[in-house]
């Protein structure tokens, strides 16, 4: 905050010490998550000449971070080792990012120390400085961007560099672009010249190049994971609530990260210029997006980038800004004003340390005081902070009680540390030691083509090797499942959206894997060393017009030959999808399919309702409309069992009655939804209630006017939680049920 004098030896020494602290903290907390190994399988396939694919033979972009993937691929090609290589790259990049923040963004050495203190004590930032995900590279690109951006230089060259860094950050993770759009726009506005516009667009070329490649190679502009995680069919309000829970989780568990973001916003207001405010705006944009998509299941993962912006805003004061502030403060603080920088620095470090160590008393007291003030209940203490991040040792995560909160947001480092933490390194044990890794290795030992269905597919997929085709029922890596809606589950967990596997899909995949369709040119275009890629030959052929004549008429037949998907519409959809993911890269049919697939031409082929509500037990109203006998609770015959995937009661016609009575087993909780065709007309959670007729509790539902006027033709009941044994007693539409004793007055 003082003038920008050249750094003395002591300045450098304390910066170096602070960075060494960060380095040691990184070593002590380094870990890898299962999801990182999804990327590593692509890296492994890429380096071994199978192309940029996850399941060999199927071009699907299973990763969100192309830049990070290529960065990992370089050293991996040399070492062919997963664990230490990935950690070394992550740690080196993270350290570099911290170095840029401390020495280039921060204007003085003391500011640098404050910055590093904030980084070291933020649980989210430390956790995701390794993890094997792309965060470190995002941090580095962001830090470089901000270092350049806060410098008072403006010119086409600077704008070009800024735009280049922003586009690299976007290629590393598309969401990060939101953070950088306002500052980039600000930079462009300041310059506002043709040259500036040109520089901006030239800088964005890497992103454009990647998008073109992604469309040509994978057939889609966005990664498969985006379709898997965003196209789930979950109502936006539910996602919003989950997104807010994500922020609130961070506030309760890692308050420093949230506080620093607010401090950054405050600093931008104190600095009071467009340059700083634009960064704040970017943070808000980004956070709004995070909330909209429901956050993530990895606590803090999506908050490290705005956190870094907050740190940069706090420590990146320019001399002019600092002088203006001190001038404003001078009458107030005559003596402290002279030492304002140093004092603020030490207070900041102490406050950071206190908050970062999760020291409960000040924050807990502030929180409970706030709660008392607003009349709410005092929040529970930090639930999953068994030890502050800086204190974590090799025993971290040995006990996993409460690693996940009630919204499914988990402390993932805690979950994986015993299996894949660097501090668990031993000379004769290969990390990770996870059960999933062992399963994958068992597949590899079989050394033959296999098709398997699994959920967590990171460790399994990487260790299984390229011979195993894995269908991921969370759809992160599967092109077809990602385009199906997620199974309806009242208790869905963010980031884990289970799909119903269509009948015959596994057999189709197995058949395709056993004898892949023979196309005119099915060579993998990214096989071998970069200078030997068949891609170049393909491009030359394309330039010669080789692909202009209409292609083999049999193409569809080839793809459909092995299709055993029983849903004919879906089989047709999959034929188009397989043409995109497996067909010859430059065939005209494929490009037509890409266009149509991306513009929604084939969307009608997917029966949304059938796959969102797959596997329900289906009954007619006639089967359940008679009151159950008031027998003892163990009379198992009474009522209708509800399967884990729910019960569908078909009403046979559109009903408009505004009153509905039903009885459900009393000791469980249920969700009841009324359907109007494939639309959800109303939903309501019921139970547990008081048993009135045998084991059943009766519920009286009054429907709102809009619901009864539009009507409903089916009732669906899903178990929420209970004793794993769920039953429906009866349903009576229009009231008049003798069992209805308990009234549920609220309208649905």
């Amino acid at each position: 905050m003082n003038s920008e004098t050249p750094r003395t030896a002591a300045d450098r020494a304390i910066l170096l010490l602070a960075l060494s602290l960060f380095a040691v903290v990184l070593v002590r907390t380094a870990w890898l998550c299962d999801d990182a190994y999804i990327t590593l399988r692509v890296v492994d396939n890429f380096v071994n000449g199978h192309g940029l694919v996850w399941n060999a033979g199927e071009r699907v972009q299973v990763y969100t971070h192309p830049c990070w993937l290529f960065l990992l691929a370089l050293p991996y090609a040399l070492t062919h080792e997963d664990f230490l290589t990935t950690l070394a790259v992550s740690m080196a990049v993270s350290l570099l990012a911290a170095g840029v923040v401390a020495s280039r963004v921060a204007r003085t050495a003391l500011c640098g120390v404050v910055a590093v203190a904030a980084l070291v004590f933020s649980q989210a930032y430390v956790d995701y400085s390794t993890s094997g995900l792309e965060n470190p590279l995002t941090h580095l690109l962001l830090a470089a961007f901000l270092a350049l951006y806060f410098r008072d230089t403006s010119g086409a060259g600077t704008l070009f560099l800024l735009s280049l860094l922003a586009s690299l950050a976007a290629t590393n993770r598309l969401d990060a672009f939101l953070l950088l759009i306002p500052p980039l726009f600000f930079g462009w506005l300041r310059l506002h010249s043709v040259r500036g516009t040109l520089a901006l667009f030239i800088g964005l070329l890497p992103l454009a190049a990647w998008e073109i490649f992604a469309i040509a190679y994978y057939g889609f502009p966005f990664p498969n994971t985006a379709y898997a995680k965003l196209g789930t069919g979950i109502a936006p309000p539910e996602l919003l609530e989950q997104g807010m829970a994500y922020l609130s989780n961070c506030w309760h568990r890692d308050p420093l990260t949230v506080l620093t973001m607010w401090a950054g916003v405050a600093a931008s207001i104190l600095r009071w210029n467009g340059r700083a405010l634009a960064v704040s705006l970017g943070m808000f944009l980004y956070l709004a997006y995070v909330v909209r998509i429901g956050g993530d299941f990895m606590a803090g993962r999506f908050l490290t980038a705005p956190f870094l912006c907050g740190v940069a805003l706090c420590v990146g004061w320019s001399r002019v800004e600092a002088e203006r502030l001190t001038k404003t403060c001078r009458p107030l603080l005559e003596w402290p004003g002279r030492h304002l920088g140093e004092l603020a620095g030490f207070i900041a470090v102490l406050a950071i340390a206190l908050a970062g160590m999760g020291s409960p008393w000040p924050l807990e007291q502030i929180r409970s005081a706030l709660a008392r003030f607003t009349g709410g209940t005092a929040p529970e203490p930090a639930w999953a902070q068994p030890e502050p991040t800086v204190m974590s040792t090799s025993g971290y995560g040995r006990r996993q009680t409460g690693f996940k909160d009630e919204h499914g947001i988990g402390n993932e480092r805690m979950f994986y540390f015993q299996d894949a933490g660097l501090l668990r390194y031993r000379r004769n044990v290969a990390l990770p030691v996870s059960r999933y890794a062992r399963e994958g290795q068992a597949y590899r030992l079989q050394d033959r083509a296999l098709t398997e269905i699994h959920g967590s597919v990171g460790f399994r997929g990487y260790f299984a090797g390229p011979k195993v085709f894995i269908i991921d029922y969370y759809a992160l890596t599967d092109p077809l499942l990602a385009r199906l809606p997620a199974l309806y589950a009242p208790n869905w967990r963010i980031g884990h959206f289970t799909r119903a596997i269509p009948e015959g899909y596994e057999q189709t995949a197995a058949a395709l894997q056993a004898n892949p369709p023979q196309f005119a040119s099915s060579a993998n275009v990214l096989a071998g060393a970069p200078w030997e890629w068949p891609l170049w030959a393909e491009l030359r052929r394309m330039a010669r017009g080789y692909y202009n004549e209409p292609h083999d008429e049999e193409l569809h037949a080839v793809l459909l030959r092995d299709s055993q998907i029983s849903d004919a519409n879906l089989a047709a959809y999959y034929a188009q999808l397989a043409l995109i993911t497996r067909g010859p890269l430059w065939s005209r049919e494929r490009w037509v399919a890409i266009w149509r697939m991306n513009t929604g031409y084939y969307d009608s082929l997917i029966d949304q309702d059938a796959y969102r509500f797959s596997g329900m037990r289906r009954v007619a109203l006639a089967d359940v409309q008679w009151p159950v006998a008031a027998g003892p609770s163990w009379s198992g015959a009474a009522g209708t069992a509800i399967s884990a995937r729910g019960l569908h009661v078909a009403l046979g016609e559109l009903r408009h009655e505004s009153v509905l009575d039903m009885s459900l087993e009393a000791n469980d909780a249920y969700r009841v939804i009324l359907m109007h065709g494939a639309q959800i007309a109303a939903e309501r959670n019921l139970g547990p209630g008081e048993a009135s007729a045998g084991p059943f509790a009766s519920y009286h539902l009054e429907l709102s006017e809009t619901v009864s006027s539009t009507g409903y033709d089916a009732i669906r009941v899903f178990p929420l939680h209970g004793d794993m044994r769920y039953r429906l007693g009866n349903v009576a539409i229009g009231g008049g049920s003798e069992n209805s004793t308990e009234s549920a007055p609220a309208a649905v």
Partner: protein
Amino acid sequence: MASQWKLVQRLLGALLLLVCLSGFMLVAVRTAWLCDDAYISFRTVDNFVNGYGLRWNVAERVQAYTHPLWLFVVAAAYHFTHEVYATVQILSLVLTFLAAGIVVFVLIDSTASAVVAVATLAFSKAFVDYSTSGLENPLSHLLLVMFLAVYFSGREEHRKTLLLSFIAACAALTRVDTLLIYGPALLWHLVRVHRLRSFLFAALGFVPLAVWEAFSLVYYGYLVPNTAYAKLDTGIAQAELARQGFAYFISLAEADPLTLAILVAGLSLPILLSQTRAIAISLGALLYLAYVVYIGGDFMCGRFVTVPFLAAVVLFAAAPMRPVHAAAALLTVTLLGFMAPYPAVLTDATYGADRLRIPGNAFRDERGVSDQRGFYYQATGLLRGPENGWEVKHVWANEGHRLRKTGAKIAISGTMGFRGFYGGPNVHIIDIHALCDPLLARLPARDPVNWQIGHFRREMPKGYDQTLVSGENRLLDKDLAAYYDKLALITRGPLLDAERLRTALALHRGEYDDLLAAYIARIPKTNTPRGNRGEPESADSSIRSSVASAPGYDAPPPGSAQASMWTGDADE
């Protein structure tokens, strides 16, 4: 007036430094301890002072120590006191005080920087632990700071060359590995002076080392200590050792983050500031650390990094700091210090007592690297002295006393520091980890897959114990017997016998290696499958039976408390 004020300021600064130094010494006193391995050297000292020669087992001349100079220093003190417990701890503390004093008052100009340096020393678990321990580290520290003081001073060239090389030679006599630290600096100095005569002076400085090597060759028949053969020539794959060496630093990161952080910061600072003279020291320290990785580190957490750590502290604190820098650095150092699970500054007389109650070895992490001070503190701590009656209170020491009382002729053991020292000169101890045994040290480790660093257990050759008891070669394997004849001539033959000296030279030239190789090829392999590390194995029946059949000694019944000695307790 101004000069008076300056004087007052300097006095106040010195006073502050003295206070800080006392604080550090307080920590050092509160943590002073001795380890079992130190007692290996103390047995040699005891034998030496009592006129049995520089031997561990009095029957044979074997260099069971890596630190001749430290041994002589201890011997000098022991000669007067005839007591080790307090003597060695006080001696170590004095050397540590001198080293810290040189750092603070000679090597560092700025008071603020010196305060940071002292705090760093006090918070470093490794440095505090190995400021005593009974091993050579305190002497190594003192020699390092003396070297640095001379190296960074602007004295006249030849005297400086002579001093530098003399100190380096002494350091090499204290621990030969540390030459790696001094090498680049010496070379840099010689290149800068760039005169032929300075090379002569450098050579003159190394005369003590040459004298010792000559003595070692004549007396022991070898240039390097027996421990080097025992620990470095184990037949274990180099990559495996390097992985263990990497693991040593992972353990350091967990147990002692400050030491690692200062190593990183201190050794990279000269490079960042491009101070050529200091870079030579950095380079040397990095070379040394690379060597530590290469040899697989050690089982004593932090022991092999204290010397480069001290160099890093000096390099780091060389930057003249203002109070604001010092405050920032102190905050960081304090945080790093308390990040250690067992910070050295917080320990008292109960250190390690809680973990001793946990079944198994709670001091050793899963990499086989352990908090040695925790393991031994209750037995040998300085604060425990009055309660222990200034004697080692440990089951192994008791076993040593028993050996002496029963007049045992021979014993087999894995940890033989306390046992050997208290067993006295009359018992011949076979060390199954081969540190003190000339024959076993030349055999490969029994299990090249599952081993703990520093504990490379050897397969006992059939008939070796009878050989030692009877005094005649009863080794069953003919090749090995032939080899042992040569070895015994060197370790037991008349010192200046021409035949003996010829054999020693032939042995160095590897003339008898094929005898050894032929035997090694016949040893049954006991490879346990990889990644299947279980509990330490129980007694090897072959050892026990061979001892039981050894004439003149009754083996204790298996399972008794005494029996653990016979199994070669591989606990530490």
